[in-house]
Structure formats: C-alpha cells, structure tokens
C-alpha cells in the first residue's frame, strides 16, 4: 500500500523515521525547532497522517508510530488538494501574485501577443 503525503506531512513522518516512535509532544518540539511550526500545526498534521493511515497513535502520551516505511511513501501531487483549500475568494483575501483561475492555452497565447504588440 502506498500513501500519498504532502511535504508538510512528510516532515512529520521524517521525524518518526529518524527518531523512532515518539510522542506527539516530542514531534512537536522537534518540528518547532526545525521548521518553526507551533504545536497546533504539528498536531493537525499528525492527525492528517493518522487519517491517511501513515501513523498509528497509542496511549499513553499520544505515542506515534510510523505505519509505513519511508520507501513506500509517494509525494502527493500538488494539484490534488489545492482547490479544496485554496478556493473561492482566498486569493482576494491574500496578496497572491496571480489569480486562482486557470487560463487556457489560447488565452496565454493572447497574453503573449499583447506583450509582443506593446513592446
């Protein structure tokens, strides 16, 4: 079985692969140091990994155990998730360089043409 994970989830798994079974607290501490995530961020990611079946959690202390070896993990493709979270007016709420909508090849060709004309 392969599990598709995003970068941030991989980061969590990395800690488990590297250090063996750890408590959520420990993972959080390590990642706070490494990538500056706060506790909630890490916990959310651990929960996501649990949901995806990459981590098993046991009591006490929210002990986390990696269910899959490093080799079996696939990087998830970016476009699979993006729309779900980054939808609607999100690009209006944040200063995004480009709008969210995709352009067709024709439109892109047209834009290049505009640049060419005005140059």
């Amino acid at each position: 079985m392969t599990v598709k994970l995003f970068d941030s989830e991989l980061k969590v798994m990395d800690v488990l692969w590297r250090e063996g079974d750890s408590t959520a607290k420990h993972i959080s501490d390590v990642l706070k140091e490494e990538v500056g995530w706060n506790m909630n961020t890490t916990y959310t990611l651990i929960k996501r990994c649990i949901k995806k079946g990459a981590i098993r959690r046991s009591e006490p202390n929210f002990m986390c155990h990696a269910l899959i070896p490093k080799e079996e993990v696939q990087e998830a493709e970016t476009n699979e998730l993006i729309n779900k979270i980054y939808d609607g007016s999100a690009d209006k709420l944040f200063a995004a360089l480009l709008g969210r909508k995709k352009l067709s090849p024709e439109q892109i060709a047209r834009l290049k043409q505009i640049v060419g004309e005005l140059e």
Partner: protein
Amino acid sequence: MSLMAMSISGAVLILVILAVRAGLKGWLPKRTFAVLWTVALIRLLIPFSVPSSWSAYTLIQNAVPETEQVRYFTDMIAGNPSGEAVRFGSAASSRLYGTDTAGDVGDLPGWEDGFGDGTGMQSGPGSGTQKDPGRNPQSKSGAGSGAQMNSAQNPQSKSGEESQPNSASGIQSGRQQVSSIASDFVSEEMLSFAEHFAALHPMLRGIWAAGFLLCAVAFAWIYFRCCREFQMSLPIEDCFLENWQRTHPLRRRLSIRQSDQILSPLSYGVWRPVILLPKSTKCGDRFQLRYVLEHEYVHIRYFDAAVKLLMAAALCIHWFNPCVYLMYIFFNRDLELACDEAVVRRFGEEEKSAYAMALIEMEEEKSGLLPLANSFSKNAIEERIGAIMKIKKISPLVHGLSAALVCGTTLLFATSCGSYEEAEKTMEAVPRAEAVDAEEAKTNNSVETKSLSVALKELGQYGPSAEQSMLLPSSIGTAEAHTAGDQEETAANTAEKAAKAAAEDVEKAIAQVEAEAEALRQAEKAAEKAIEQIAEVTEQTSKAAEGSGRAEKAAYADENGKHTAQAEEISAGSDTEYTTDNPYHSVAYMISIGEEFEEYEKFGLSYDKKSDFLMYKNQTVGFFKDETKPGVYTRLVEGSGDLGITVNREKSGKITDFSVFPFNENSLTDSSVSEDAAVKEGSGIIRWDDSGDIVSIVSFPAEERGNLEAYAAEQGDADEAKAVPGGTGSTDSGSKTEAVSGTAVSSEGGLKTQAASGGSAYSEGDPNTEKTSLPKEYEKLGVKTSDEKNNEWTYKGKGVAVIYDKDHWIYTNDTIPEKKAVYLEVVRDKKDRVTELREITKKEMQKLFDEE
C-alpha cells in the same frame, strides 16, 4: 452617521472612483486608485464624517433651492428626457444615481411592489410619461452597478411591509416644500432619508445582522483555514533568498517559506509577513524569482494584507450594497496593478516586458497542472498585462494631478454636508435638527412611522378615491410629515399645496387626509409625551443609579478612610513603640496582628501597645508559644515578661486552653541570658515561612529545647532544615531556614554536633570564645565576630546593624551607631546558597522590610 448613510455615501464615492478609473486609467499612476479606494474604504468603515462646506452634498443642496433648477438638475441627473418633474423622492433618488441596471432591479421580486404600489408612482400603466425607475433606459449597463435604491429597497421589500418605505419617503418629501421635493434627494437629505430608512424596522436590522454574520463567518472560515494551511509551510534555505532579504530590509520580521499547497506565490500576515512560494515555482529560476519576491515585498510594504482584511470587513458590514462588491473586485485589481507598477519602477522600465512575460509564464505553468481552464479572470489578467506594458514615465505634473484628484474626491465625496444650517435657510425653515442628531431622529421617526402606517392603513378604507389618484399618498405623506416636522405650517396649508399640484377630484380625499393628519398629530403628541415620560423615567433611573453609585463611593471612601486611619494608627503605633532606629516589629506585635490573634483573645490574651507586650490577666507575657499543626506555624516570643504561655490545641487544631507558667529569666540558659539583653534592646531574629507568615524564634527556656528538637525531628527533615542550633530553634517542614536563638544561627556544618552536644551554639560560660554562632556562609564572605564588643558582628570594619536574608531570617543589632553601621542584604542563588553580601543603605533596607 447611520449605517445606511455610510453605505450610501460610500457607494457614491465608489461610483465616482469607478468613473474616474474608467476615464483616467491609462493616465494616472495606479497608486492613485489604490489611495482613492482606501478613502472609500475608510468612508465605509468609519461611522462619522467630517462636515465640509465643499462637500458635494453641500454644494448640491445650495445649488438647487429653486424649483426650476431642481427640475432641471434632477432631470439632468436622472437623464429623463421628458423633463417631467420627478414627483417622488425615491424616484428621484434612484435616478440621481442613474445606476439601475435595466433588468436587474426591475426584475427583483418585491421591488416593484415596494416601490410602485404605495408611492403613487406616476408611471401607472397608463401614464407613460415616466418610466419605472427600474426600467430606466438611461441607466448605464454598468455591470452590477445596482443602485442604492436597489440595495435599500431590497431588504425592505423582503420584509414584506410595503407601506413603510412610502411613509418614510413621505416624511422626507414632506419635510421639504412640495415644490422642491426632488431636491431633497440630491442633497444630504438623501443621507438622512437613508438614516430614517434604516431606523424603520427592527426587522431590517435583524436581516442586516444575519447577513453580516453570514459574511463574517464565511470570510473568517476561509481566512483561518488558509492561514492554517499556510502555517504548515516549510522554510527554505537558500543563499539567494538570504541575500535578497538582506537587500530588502523591513521593520517587521519577514520570512520566506515554501508550500506545496499553493499554485502561485502569495504573501500573508500583517505583523509577521510571510512570503509563501509554491513548490512548483521554478525556484531555480532566479531571474523570475526576483520579480516574484519584489512583487510580494511591495505588497508587504504597503500593508496590502491589512487592506484586504479591511476590505473584507467592509464587505461584511455593507453586504447589501452592490457598490461595495464592485469596490472589492476593483480594489483588489488595483492593488495588484499598483504593485506591478511599483515593481516595474524598481527594476526599471526596460524590464517591464520581462516582468509581464514572467507573469504569463507562471500562469502557464500553473494552468498546465490543471486541465480546467476558466475564462473568468481573463479580463483581469489582460488588464494587468496591458497595464504593465503601458507603464510610462510619469511626469511630476501628472503626479500633482493625481494628488489633486485624490484630495478633491476626498473633499467632495468623503465629507458630509457641512454648512447644514445655511443650506437649511436657503430652503424653507424646516427644523431638521434631528437629522443632524441621528439618534434623536431615529426615535422620533419610529414614532412617526408607526402612527403613519396606522394612518395609511385607515386610508386604505377610502379605497377608490385614494387609488384613483397617484398623488394622494404623496400628499398624505407630505401632510403628515409636516405635522411631524413643522408645527407652524398647518396641515391644511400643506394639503392645499399638494392639492394644487394634484387633480381637483382628489380634494375630497385630501380633506379626509387632513382630518387624518389632525388625528395623527394628536397621536403623535401623545407618543411624544410617552417618549418624554420614558426619558424622564430613564433619567430618574440613571439618577438613582448615580445616587447609589455615590453611596457606594462614599462607602468606599469611608472604608478607605478607615484603612488609612488604621494605617496611620499602625504607623503611629510603630513610631511610638519602637525607637526610630528600630523600625522592625517586635515579635509580640507580630503576634498581635497575626490571624490567630482573635482566637487568643478569646482566651484572655491581649496586646499592650505602649509596652509592646502581650498581656495575660494583667501580667506581661515573656514567653509565648503556639505549635499548631506541623507546617502551619509556630510562634515564640521572649522578653522580660512575667508569664510563659503555651497554647494547647486539640487534634483538629482548635485551641483548648493555655498552659500558663511563671516565666523569669532564670529559666533561660546562661548563655542566652547574655543574649537576652541584646534581644530586649531590639535585636532579634524573625523568621518567615514560605507563605510569608512570621515564624519567629528568639530565645526560649531550656526546658523547651527538648521539645523543639523532638519537634524538628518529627518533621523528619532536620537535615534539610539545617535547623536547631543548640536546640534553640525550630523549623517548618521544608523550610530551609536556620532557626535561631538570640543572635545564634546555625550553619550546616556545626549543626549536628552542636545539637548532639545538647548545648547551645555558644560555648557556655566562656565569654572569650565565639559569642555568636555566625553562619559560616556569612563568615566566608567577610562577616566577623568582634571579640571586644559583646556579640557584635562586623563587616569590613563596621558593625553589622542588619543582615537581611530574605525568606530566611533577619539579624538586627540596633546598638550600633548609625554612622558606623552597615546594612547587608544576602543574595542567594537558585540552590539557595549564599553568593553575596550586598551593602545597602538604611533606606534601602527599610524598603526591603516594607516590601515584606
């Protein structure tokens, strides 16, 4: 300013900006529009306005006092070619803005009901001279530029009460002369109309609140979800980025991170901005990355993230106002355009096509990931690319112009009607003070409208005649409004005027209206009275509240006074009781202010201030001991009293009785006797336990020592407690302090042997050897015992007056003249080891005690 007034004046500003934008887009620097939008945003968010005589509202109001002008003006604005006077305010207003989108508004359910029905529209199916405002051919096609009236009317019609907007407009028109009804609506009156309108229904407020909450929740949800996702981004380590950051300083801490959850670069965070790069960006492509970073950097520098949030807030508040949606769309665009412009300027114009191509390539890359292509944003990106390519050098003249434009627009449209009174005078003298005072207007108006709606219902009974005449309702409105607003002008007068304007066959109805109005007037008066009464009651209540507040204050002051008095007493007491050289409280005093003292008093113990002695049956107490539950406290005091008292308690801690025994100095050990002299003079050692309670130990009779040792042993931590030198001290469990007798202090080393020897800390009967048990900790740091002077400790050649060892003990010796005295504060480290003896002044020492 009411919400409606804000919304409408904001909308006017938005439309003006859109017009300017459409006309001068290519000519002005893009930042101009961003600034203009910001002004509109402020107009929408801040509930008060600066009155200005240059305000467009003032100017219009001043410009149109005459009927001819009014008609001309109104028609001109409304673009009504027929030149027919606009008879009804709301009609005029909708024309004024000329914004009704043909289909949009007219098709809205309830619009026509709400509008046409009761207002006595001229545009009955037969009239044909005037078109329904919703179908005004003049209206621009302006996408979605729905008018104020639309927004205002919409919730109104939803609420399903058609009669009331009419009455509201009736009031409005009535306030003015019939001849200049229309002019109201090109003036501030429009705003107060809106105010009144907003005040009409609690129901409308409910609808507004619901919409507001819905929008706010939606935005917040999106925002926080995105933020959470963005927080999961990973830092990038890249020397290019580090270099870039070094050349782009920012007061706030900027971080650059990477996420695989986004497709195009973005920045977020106002106080801790983050530039987030998508994983797919060709980060290796430094050339492109430069543009990206620069773009986001400009966003961050201009606080665009905050502006966007404010925009969202404005949208939530003015969700009913379509103009605000327009602003949202175009402000966002203009932010990007202004940003692009700044980037191109930073890089130089030569690079503008490279920048444009970079944007397009990123679009390409992004779109390549998804087969779904959407043409929605085509215009925006085309506009953007076009704008980038057209960036030219802007002459100072244009900069000046754009600044003037911003100032002018702000002055004209962001201010409110300034010379209000003057404008009034040019019109008829109609008291409209309440329009200024929105609050008052609201109360008055709600009363008016209530009675008016009743009146209108009754009017309905006149059925045919009323319906026949289009003008009737308006005249009713006028008449009624006059009764409301203008006491001087009789209702009849107004009605007549209205009648002249109307067809003759309405006269009858008008007479009825008159009567109606009369009744209404009375009803209104009653209502006013009621309001007054309510106001009175409120006043009374507030007065009462004030009164009680005062009483409370007084009580408080009293209490304070008491406290002060007490404090004074205390300080006075301490002044008289102790020599100025000895500000430290005696143990007897400490006991007397202890929380347990009340209980002692029940058994006959008292405290005599003058002699500073505890008294029992008129005899002074020389020894007092209360050993309660372990760890609570033990109090011991000595002195030259007559009696010794031990407090006996039962297991529950309740005091059973006192053991009283005769007390004399002989009962003390020989060595202690000599110490005792010093003690009596004010030297003593007071110990505090952790909770700050005093656990004071001075010296006490020999026969007690055994008990104390046993007691200390009981605590089981004699080792830790380092206590009981010569059996003269006792400790609480866990306390790290030395217990002391007189000036005797234990030290870890000497403790056990001394204790074991059963003797005191001093070599008994040998005055030449060490008189005091100076703690070794102190000795190491330079405190010495003086052989010549009895027991005196010295430090650097001076006599030690006080050693203050916080939470441990205090040594005092007030026999030392102040000039030769030294005051030491003991500094301990975390492990409770003495690290330093700090010489402080007497004043500082005093302070330390006060803090204690």
